[in-house]
């Protein structure tokens, strides 16, 4: 036993409601001191490069100041110097967990400006790919939320399924993560038998894995203790902060772009919009899980009803001709050259088009002055807009809660910084 006093001389007072500690005057200075904690920029729990400077009072967070922009790549500036078809790869790199949605969103924006009507088959293929992307996006968010609460197993199970989604991407565009999928005017490849076989196998196998995952988490005592009532947000605050997507729906507002402003034939499908009650971490998790089931429903319907016909629009000035044609016909060769060299002038106009991205309303505001590249292109990135609510959500919670809240918001650094 040593008699060095390491704690200040505070006497707990027993009252009717519990033990009260009188933190009056006689505290030594170091007790009132706040600790500055740098959460990030490269911290394994931030899942991306962004920093939060937290002021900590012991385990409690007193204030948080986010610093972002670590992977800002000036996409909006780059887009002003590129022909339209070269902008697609830029959009890949925004929300890289669901790049097909970004790609299709951009294609649809360009098509709106150019007045191209896309055939039904291409629209259905797009819906299938976008919903697969949504599933893979939500899988990552939810399984990593599991990792952050200490459950690694779900992550391993679900990442195997994500690989299968990426295999399906590969059949349609040849790549896996940054997909650059589709073209202005349709898809670059038809939905072939191999892709269909893979998709049908995925639809058959995946529900069992998903059920297992839900069985592990949905009513797990430890998981619920960590997430229920952690980082709740009222619908009013969520709307004021510009929340969209699953995070807004978790707060109880049923706003979904797919229903409000249907695009790419979403009105043909029957699906539900899940909403939560409290807008806390648990609700966000549950809403995402349910959205995965709804996405599966949409994919099943789209696959069953997949219309026959062409998979790209008749828009020779924007849609690359088939390679076979380029070697044989003069016209195709000319169009191929013109498109690749970016020598096609787009009509002047102003378009805002939005799609329901993995994280919410992903908008493209495009101004064309009649030149070859956009005069101005602005991306409405849902992550960037709702991440500013993070300090308000974490103040008063503990560090471990802050990690879980960050994870459940699904902040993707690429989309945050563009």
């Amino acid at each position, binding site marked *: 036993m040593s008699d060095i006093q390491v704690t200040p001389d505070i006497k707990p007072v027993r009252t009717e409601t519990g033990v009260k500690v009188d933190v009056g005057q006689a505290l030594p200075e170091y007790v009132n001191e706040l600790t500055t904690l740098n959460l990030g920029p490269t911290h394994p729990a931030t899942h991306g490069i962004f920093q939060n400077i937290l002021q900590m009072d012991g385990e409690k967070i007193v204030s948080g100041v986010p610093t*972002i922009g670590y992977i800002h790549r000036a996409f909006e*500036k780059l887009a002003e110097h590129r022909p339209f078809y070269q902008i697609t790869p830029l959009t890949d790199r925004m929300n890289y967990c669901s790049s097909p949605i970004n790609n299709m969103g951009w294609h649809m924006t360009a098509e709106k400006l150019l007045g191209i009507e896309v055939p039904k088959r291409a629209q259905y293929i797009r819906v299938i790919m976008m919903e697969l992307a949504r599933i893979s996006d939500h899988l990552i968010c939810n399984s990593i939320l599991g990792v952050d609460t200490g459950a690694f197993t779900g992550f391993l199970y679900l990442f195997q399924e994500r690989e299968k989604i990426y295999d399906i991407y590969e059949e349609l565009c040849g790549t896996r993560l940054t997909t650059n999928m589709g073209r202005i005017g349709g898809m670059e490849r038809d939905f072939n038998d191999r892709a269909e076989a893979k998709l049908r196998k995925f639809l058959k196998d995946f529900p069992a894995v998903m059920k297992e995952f839900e069985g592990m988490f949905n009513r797990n005592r430890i998981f619920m203790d960590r997430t229920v009532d952690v980082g709740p947000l009222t619908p009013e605050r969520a709307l004021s902060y510009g929340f969209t997507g699953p995070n807004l729906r978790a707060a109880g*507002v049923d706003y979904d772009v797919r229903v409000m402003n249907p695009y790419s034939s979403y009105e043909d499908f029957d699906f539900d919009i899940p909403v939560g009650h409290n807008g806390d971490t648990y609700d966000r998790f549950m809403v995402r899980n349910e959205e995965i089931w709804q996405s599966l429903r949409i994919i099943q319907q789209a696959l069953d009803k997949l219309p026959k016909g062409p998979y790209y629009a008749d828009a020779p000035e924007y849609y690359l001709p088939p390679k076979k044609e380029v070697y044989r016909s003069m016209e195709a060769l000319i169009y191929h050259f013109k498109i690749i060299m970016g020598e096609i002038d787009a009509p002047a106009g102003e378009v805002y088009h939005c799609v329901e991205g993995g994280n919410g309303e992903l908008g493209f505001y495009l101004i064309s002055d009649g030149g070859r590249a956009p005069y101005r292109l602005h991306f409405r990135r849902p992550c960037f807009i709702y991440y500013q609510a993070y300090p308000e959500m974490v103040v008063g919670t503990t560090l471990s809660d802050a990690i879980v809240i960050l994870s459940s918001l699904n902040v993707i650094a690429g989309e945050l910084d*563009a």
Partner: protein
Amino acid sequence: MTNQEVFEDLNNRFGDAIFDVHEPYGFLTLTTTRENIIDVLQYLYSHQTFQVQFLTDITGVQYPELAGNEFAVVYHLHSLVNNFRLRIKVFIPAADPVIPTATGLWASANWMERETFDFFGIVFRGHPNLMRILNMEDMDYFPMRKEYPLEDQTRRDKDDAKFGR
């Protein structure tokens, strides 16, 4: 709730302060002045039937050839109740690129305005924390302005001859 109804209502209330109304691709677009912008936003926000209460986006556009109207600040608004969208533009001169902030109406305007300031140098008067957000603090120019070409002109470590320029 149609474009026509909204325009007529705004026109009754603000008269000449609402001008240059058009509908590109069916999207109601109107222009107002910086003296009126907050009143217009506030009016639409608290309107009994319109309830335009969701701020989708704030961004800037530069038109260097429009003398006296070099910068445009573009607001995209959304009435979730009526599922109605509109776009409001405000043109401001480059010599005095100042516009009142909308942070009093929406918390989300905070970072949108910081981003617009960061890239265009548009100053939002009354903003609680108007600092750069994506670029570094000590940057001394506004990179999205048209006078700054894509290649960073401040760099001296690149030999143009080697890049065929």
